[in-house]
């Protein structure tokens, strides 16, 4: 069982802010809940090549896969949580079967469902997400326990040299909410415009 107690693990906000600072050009997709707050707290409204999910639980990774296959000359990063990843766990197999070089999946893992009252998740109860990702066949997996390792993650993102799965062991703590815009249509259109695409 993973031994993450409430005050152990990395500071999620700091890790995400440090990562985003090193990957300014990467296309970022967030899973719903706290990971989207972490990204928005660091990215703010100006970072238009960022797509925030407010629902569609389990969809962050497959959405990131479709994006990575379409935009092969850009780095694509999915930032999500353990609960969201677990709901779409099979998508790691779908990713592995495609293995686009430009896709990195970053799971902020506190072993809990943070949005709904910190109930233990499967990863908190013993599931090893890095082993699962490797078992599905994702070529590179990293487990991050030191905030100094954010540079290693950024290097993989920017290199676009192989699909990478990153499990970041974060502290199970509530942060102030930083709510990204909830207008999915506006987010979609701004994102596409940032890539030079029309609305439809």
């Amino acid at each position, binding site marked *: 069982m993973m031994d993450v107690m409430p005050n152990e693990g990395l500071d999620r906000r700091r890790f995400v802010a440090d990562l985003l600072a090193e990957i300014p050009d990467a*296309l970022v*997709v967030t899973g719903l809940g706290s990971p989207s707050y972490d990204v928005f707290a660091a990215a703010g409204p100006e970072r238009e090549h960022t*797509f925030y*999910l*407010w*629902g*569609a*639980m*389990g*969809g*962050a*990774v*497959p*959405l*990131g*896969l*479709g*994006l*990575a*296959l*379409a*935009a092969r000359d*850009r780095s694509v990063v999915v930032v999500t949580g353990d609960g969201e990843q677990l709901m*779409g766990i*099979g*998508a790691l*197999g*779908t990713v592995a*079967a*495609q293995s686009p070089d430009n896709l990195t999946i970053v799971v902020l893992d506190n072993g809990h469902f943070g949005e709904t009252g910190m109930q233990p998740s499967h990863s908190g109860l013993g599931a090893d997400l890095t082993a699962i990702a490797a078992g599905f066949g994702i070529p590179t997996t990293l487990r991050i326990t030191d905030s100094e390792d954010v540079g290693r993650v950024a290097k993989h993102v920017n290199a676009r040299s192989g699909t990478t799965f990153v499990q970041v062991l974060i502290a199970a703590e509530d942060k102030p909410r930083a709510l990204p815009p909830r207008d*999915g*249509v506006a*987010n*979609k259109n701004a*994102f*596409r415009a940032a*890539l*030079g*695409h029309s*609305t*439809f």
Partner: protein
Amino acid sequence: MTQAAAEIDWQQDVFDVLKEGGVSQIAYVPDAGHATSIRAAQADPDIRAVVLTTEEEGVALVGGAWLGGQRAVLLMQSSGVGNCVNMFSLLHSCRFPFLTLVTMRGEYAEFNPWQNPMGLATQRALELMGITVLRVDRPDQVRDTVSAAFDSVFLAGERVAVLLGQRLIGRKKWENG
């Protein structure tokens, strides 16, 4: 069915519409009725054939492809529509263009009663989630119907499902040998 209709390779017609329309990603959970498109996608250097573990992944993948500037479609069987229901929210919330081709079970000469509950609810489930449903049961109407759906999706930004009726696919052979 007329002899001429019986000779139409409707499965090839489906793929031809997708290919001519510039589809770059074809996501699927396999079905015999989609076999031609899946094989053709796998053989086509300009198309990614993406095998899914569950159909809802395909809903999100199609949205991601669109964000990145590509056209993608989802191929599935009627049972898979049930797996997608909450993920369809993504299409509505973001108004993603969405085309899915659904091979039907549980509606015509169905041997397996376990297919019936979802097969008989497929059209209503799609419509409840805001997806327009077109249906085709004759081989000579497949090309035109899929093409019409394709244009609604990619020229007008709509969400459309084409149900490929079980009569098209024919009776499933269950006897051994």
